[in-house]
Every structure is written in structure tokens, then in C-alpha cells.
């Protein structure tokens, strides 16, 4: 992702100025101290600056990690190692603060050295992961070039360190030599990344590297200052270190604000859930507590051994141990409870998933069962009528004369009941089949006439055909299914009483409107809102699928199907297609 400072958004400007402002402010404080002198500078400015800035950096890094699924500028693992390096620097600075400002000692080598050395190693890993993720082929020339640059920069530091430390113990020499070594190691991927960034500018990485280069420069300067024994707290070299931390802090903030551009997906986040949240669930609390415990332990040991090294105050000793034990016990309880809760939560989630799955399955089955029993009921009724009609002719007593009228009457009954079965089957097929739409232009009245011809209209019902007509572009066959359903529904609603079905066609600028009105009883108010839902029917001879199919067909035509009472009227609204749409979808 290419994002240039201040070019893409106003916010960019604001925080670019904030970064520069912060750097100027801190530098000014140091410069004023060097030139004029600020009273108690070490404790009032140096200590808080070295605590607040790296602290903010660590907090922002943790915040960034929690949003890792929304961050695209840096791969997840790379970010984790970057955060680890910042965390190491933070611990190193705090240990240093403890020695320098609280205990007033200068042990060498110390825990601070360990963290100072670990930080560049973590950053090295982070850079390597980033470089790997770019999937860019890095030529051997570039690698060689980077190594050469790093080694060239390493030599003077190595020589200087070696000369000074030659009289020290071996371990001390190794630690002293490690500083320029880790710095040059981290320089290798940095140079590669920098070269890589020339063609693919990433503001975030450029700034991270800038911070790193300033840090390495500061380390090198510090090394020579130490050799000359010229370093004091508040030396200009501090400005470099502070600048690095400040730049990185702003970059972490930048990363978070960038990630805010992407909205959190509503459902559980699969990539984050897959690794991140589970890992945090498993180890988050434990690691957090271990860190807290370690800090408490270091502080207690520090107080006991350095502040009162000669004190016989056993009470202080005692309270220190009790406090340490209490913290440890509390931590263990939290870890245990947390793991227990996690397990319970996992079990519950699994149970819930299983139950939901079963519920969906059983609901699906019950819907299928309901449909099947309704279809079987609706087919058994007309079948029974057909059988009775035939048996009445077959088994009529010999003394009864079967007239042609009787036979015709029974055959009419048979025909009507066969039609009923066929209608049910069509309903089900119309519902389950997802036929491809074949649009053509036709007169709507022709479709209605053709439909009515295929329906048996009882004598007690009159059909009033539409007086006007309209040209539509639609699927002729599918509209026939709709008209068939609505007209047959009307016939069934009217029942044995005299009644009529009125069909009207009208049009406005955008739509063709077809109304099918029947004189049957009104649809009960409780059914009306659900009339287009599957398996809803007011009839004993309906599958409850016909109207669903009708609605689906009309909606596939981008139209609307509505119903109202008094008198019962179904209204189909079909949009008029523009000429271009007709061409697109012939």
C-alpha cells in the first residue's frame, strides 16, 4: 500500500506536524539543558521522557496487534516481532532508569544490556518476515551489497570496542562487542528493505527504517562517547534515541489509524479468530501475569539488594516475600480460572453449534415433512373422488339404469379432480424448479386467454376478461403459472356459490398493472400478511406453495405482487422495460 505523508488525507498533515512538533520540543529541552542547564534535568525531564515515550510505543504496539486482522501495511508475524523489539527497548530503558535514576548505580553487564541487545534481533526477524511476505525476488547482488555496507560500518566500532575492552573480562568483551554486531546484523535487512522501498514506497516502512538508522547511529556515537568517557545523561545523543522512539510511536499510531479505515466485519473474524484470538485466549493472560510477576520480582529484589544492601530489616524482607507470594498465588488463580473459563466457553460454543445444526436439520426435515403430508393429503382427496366416481358407475345396482348424463357427470367429476391433482403437482414443481427465464414480447391478454383455456371454469363462475391490453416483455410460460394460480385460487375461494372473476389490465409510465379480482370471501386478517409465505393456505386443497411461486416469478421480473381485501384482488405490477433492457435480455 502506497501512502505518502500528508498527501492522501488532511489527517496526515496534522500528525506529520505533531511528529515534527514533538521532536522539536524534546530536542529543544535537551538543547536548552546543554546550553543553559535545567535544574534536576535528569529526574524531571530525562526520566519521564524515557518512560512515557517507549511506554506509549509499547501500548500502541499492543493496540496495533489487537487490530492485526485489519492491518495491511505489515504482515501479522512481522508486527508481533516489531512489537517485541519495542517491548525489549522499553524494558531496557526502564531497567536503565531504575539503575540510573532510582538506584544510582551503573552495573555492567546488566539486565538492561540483555534487552538492548534483544531488541534489534527482534527487529531483524520482523524485517525478514516483511521481506519474505513481499514475495519479491531479492538478487544476490543486493544481499551482498547490504552485507558489505553493514560490515564496513561495523569494522570501526568493533576495532574501537576491542581496543578499549581488551583488559576486561571475556564476558564483558563479548557483551560490548555484541552491540555493534547486532546493529550491523539488523542493518542488512534494513538496507535490503530500503532498496526495495525505492521502487515500492511505503511510508510506514520508510519511517520505521529511519527510526532504526537513527537508533544505530545513536548506538555508534554512544559507543565512542563511552570510550572517551564523555557521556552524561542529557547528552545530545539522547535526542537521537528519543527521536527513534518518537518516530516509531507515531508509526504505530499511524498503523492503527490506517486500520480504522477498514470496518470490522460483523461476523467472527476468521483470520483473527483462527490464530490471533485463540492464542491471546490461551497465553494472553498467562504472559501478562508472568511479565507483571517478573517486574514485581525485579523491583523487590532491586529494593532488597540495592537500596538496603546492608539492612537487617527482616520485616521488609518478609513483606517482600509475602507480597511476591500473594501476587504469584493471585496470578495462578487467574490463570487457572481463565483456562477453566476458556474450556467451558469452548464446550458451550461447541454444544451451541451442535444444537443449532440439529435444530436447522430438524426444522428442515419438519418443513419437508409438513409439505409431504400436505401434498399427500391434497392428492388423496381428488384420488378418492375419482375412485368413488368410477366405483359408482362400476358397482351401480342392476336395477338402476345408468344414463349418459350420469356417466358424463361422473366423467366431469373425474376430469375436475385430475385437474386438481395436476394443479397441485404444478404448484410443487413451480416451487422447487428454478427455471431459467426466457423473456419475449407479447400481449398480456393473449397470455391470460391461453391460461384460462387450460382451466376448467365451473358454470357458477363467470370470467370478465380485460377490456384493454398491454405489450410486455416477460417469460410467457412463467406468467401463465402466475395467472393459473391466481385464477384457480379465485375459483376455489368462490366455491359452489355464484361468483365472478374480473381481470383488468392498465398501465402507467413505468409499469403494467394486472389485477385479478374474485368475489369470494375475504382473506382472514391474520393470514393476509403471511399469504405469500410457503405452506400458508386458507384452503384444504392447497399446497401453500402456489402464491410463493407466483411472488418469486413476479419478483424475478423485478415486479411486485400484492393482495388486498374487499373485494379480494391480487395486483401484479410489472416494470416496463426500456428498449436497451429488451435488447440486453431478449
Amino acid at each position: 500500500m502506497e501512502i505518502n505523508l500528508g498527501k492522501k488525507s488532511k489527517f496526515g498533515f496534522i500528525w506529520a506536524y505533531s511528529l515534527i512538533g514533538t521532536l522539536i520540543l524534546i530536542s529543544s529541552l535537551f538543547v536548552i539543558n546543554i546550553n543553559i542547564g535545567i535544574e534536576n534535568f535528569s529526574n524531571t525531564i530525562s526520566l519521564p521522557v524515557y518512560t512515557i515515550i517507549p511506554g506509549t510505543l509499547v501500548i500502541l504496539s499492543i493496540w496495533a496487534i489487537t487490530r492485526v486482522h485489519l492491518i495491511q501495511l505489515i504482515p501479522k508475524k512481522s508486527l508481533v516481532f516489531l512489537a517485541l523489539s519495542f517491548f525489549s527497548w522499553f524494558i531496557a530503558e526502564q531497567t536503565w532508569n531504575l539503575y540510573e535514576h532510582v538506584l544510582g548505580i551503573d552495573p555492567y553487564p546488566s539486565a538492561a544490556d540483555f534487552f538492548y541487545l534483544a531488541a534489534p534481533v527482534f527487529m531483524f526477524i520482523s524485517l525478514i518476515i516483511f521481506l519474505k511476505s513481499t514475495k519479491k525476488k531479492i538478487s544476490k547482488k543486493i544481499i551482498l551489497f547490504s552485507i558489505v555496507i553493514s560490515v564496513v560500518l561495523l569494522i570501526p566500532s568493533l576495532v574501537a570496542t576491542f581496543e578499549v575492552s581488551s583488559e576486561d573480562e571475556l564476558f564483558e568483551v563479548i557483551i560490548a562487542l555484541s552491540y555493534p554486531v547486532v546493529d550491523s546484523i539488523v542493518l542488512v535487512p534494513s538496507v535490503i528493505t530500503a532498496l526495495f522501498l525505492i521502487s515500492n514506497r511505503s511510508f510506514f516502512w520508510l519511517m520505521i527504517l529511519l527510526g532504526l538508522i537513527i537508533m544505530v547511529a545513536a548506538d555508534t556515537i554512544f559507543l565512542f562517547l563511552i570510550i572517551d568517557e564523555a557521556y552524561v545523561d542529557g547528552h545530545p545523543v539522547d535526542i537521537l534515541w528519543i527521536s527513534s522512539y518518537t518516530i516509531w510511536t507515531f508509526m504505530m499510531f499511524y498503523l492503527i489509524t490506517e486500520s480504522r479505515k477498514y470496518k470490522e466485519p460483523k461476523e467472527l473474524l476468521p483470520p483473527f479468530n483462527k490464530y490471533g484470538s485463540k492464542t491471546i485466549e490461551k497465553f494472553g493472560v498467562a504472559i501478562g501475569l508472568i511479565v507483571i510477576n517478573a517486574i514485581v520480582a525485579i523491583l523487590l529484589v532491586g529494593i532488597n539488594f540495592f537500596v538496603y544492601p546492608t539492612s537487617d530489616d527482616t520485616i521488609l524482607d518478609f513483606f517482600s516475600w509475602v507480597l511476591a507470594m500473594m501476587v504469584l498465588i493471585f496470578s495462578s488463580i487467574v490463570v487457572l480460572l481463565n483456562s477453566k473459563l476458556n474450556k467451558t466457553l469452548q464446550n458451550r460454543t461447541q454444544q451451541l453449534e451442535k444444537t443449532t445444526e440439529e435444530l436447522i436439520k430438524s426444522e428442515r426435515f419438519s418443513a419437508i415433512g409438513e409439505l409431504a403430508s400436505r401434498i399427500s393429503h391434497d392428492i388423496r382427496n381428488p384420488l378418492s373422488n375419482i375412485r368413488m366416481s368410477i366405483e359408482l358407475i362400476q358397482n351401480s345396482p342392476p336395477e338402476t339404469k345408468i344414463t349418459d348424463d350420469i356417466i358424463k357427470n361422473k366423467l366431469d367429476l373425474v376430469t375436475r379432480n385430475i385437474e386438481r391433482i395436476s394443479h397441485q403437482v404444478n404448484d410443487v414443481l413451480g416451487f422447487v424448479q428454478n427455471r431459467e427465464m426466457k423473456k419475449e414480447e407479447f400481449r398480456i391478454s393473449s397470455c391470460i386467454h391461453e391460461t384460462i383455456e387450460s382451466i376448467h371454469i365451473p358454470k357458477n363462475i363467470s370470467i370478465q376478461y380485460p377490456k384493454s391490453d398491454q405489450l410486455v416483455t416477460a417469460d410467457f410460460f412463467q406468467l401463465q403459472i402466475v395467472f393459473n394460480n391466481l385464477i384457480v385460487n379465485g375459483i376455489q375461494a368462490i366455491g359452489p356459490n355464484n361468483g365472478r372473476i374480473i381481470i383488468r389490465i392498465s398501465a402507467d409510465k413505468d409499469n403494467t398493472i394486472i389485477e385479478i379480482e374474485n368475489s369470494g370471501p375475504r382473506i382472514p386478517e391474520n393470514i393476509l400478511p403471511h399469504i405469500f409465505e410457503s405452506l400458508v393456505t386458507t384452503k384444504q386443497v392447497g399446497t401453500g406453495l402456489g402464491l410463493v411461486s407466483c411472488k418469486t416469478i413476479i419478483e424475478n421480473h423485478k415486479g411486485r405482487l400484492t393482495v388486498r381485501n374487499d373485494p379480494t384482488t391480487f395486483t401484479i405490477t410489472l416494470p416496463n422495460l426500456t428498449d436497451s433492457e429488451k435488447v440486453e435480455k431478449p
Partner: protein
Amino acid sequence: MAASVIVIDDDEDTVRLFSEFLEENKIKVIGRGHDGKTAVKLYQEKKPDCVLIDVMMPNGSGIYAIKKIREMDSDVKIIAVTGDSRFSTEQKLEKLKIPVIYKPFKMNEVIERILK
């Protein structure tokens, strides 16, 4: 013995054909209806020997009508004639000790049941 029956089914054709067939077999159809409430009313008015009743009907189901009729007369012969073969319906009828004939049925089977 010429029995008297009422025929209740929401399907018009069924009621018509059923009645015609029963009449031919010397069974008097003294009432016809298309829903549960009509069935109860008809039974109250006509007191037939036997009630032939469908189960799935609007305006008071067959089960509703059977319970109401049984309240009035616990001995009356009731036969359920239905296309509803759901297990739940079968269970309800069994609980009420109502014999059931499933559609499509043989006519003679119905006659036998009525006269039994």
C-alpha cells in the same frame, strides 16, 4: 337395517359422491356439511346413527367436532374418513378411539364399517 348418517368433508365433490353412494346402499344421508362447527350443529339437530367426518377442515377441525359430539353422546358411532396420514393425526384419533378410513378407500369398506 337402514342406518342414518351425516357426511362432513370440506371437499364438495367428496360429500356429493359419498352421499350418492350411501343412498344407493340404502343408508340415509340426513345431513351434509363442510366444516367442524356445522358437524356439531348437524349432529345436535339430526341425531344420526353414524357420523362420517374428515379431519383436516377449516372452521373447526374434525378432531374438534368429534370431541364435541362425544361430549353430547359418548356412544355414537363416528368414523373418520381422511387423506391426512400424519402420525400426529393417527395418534389423536387412536386416543379418541375413532376408527379411521384413509382416502382413497373402497366404498364397500365404508359400508361394512357403518353397518358393523
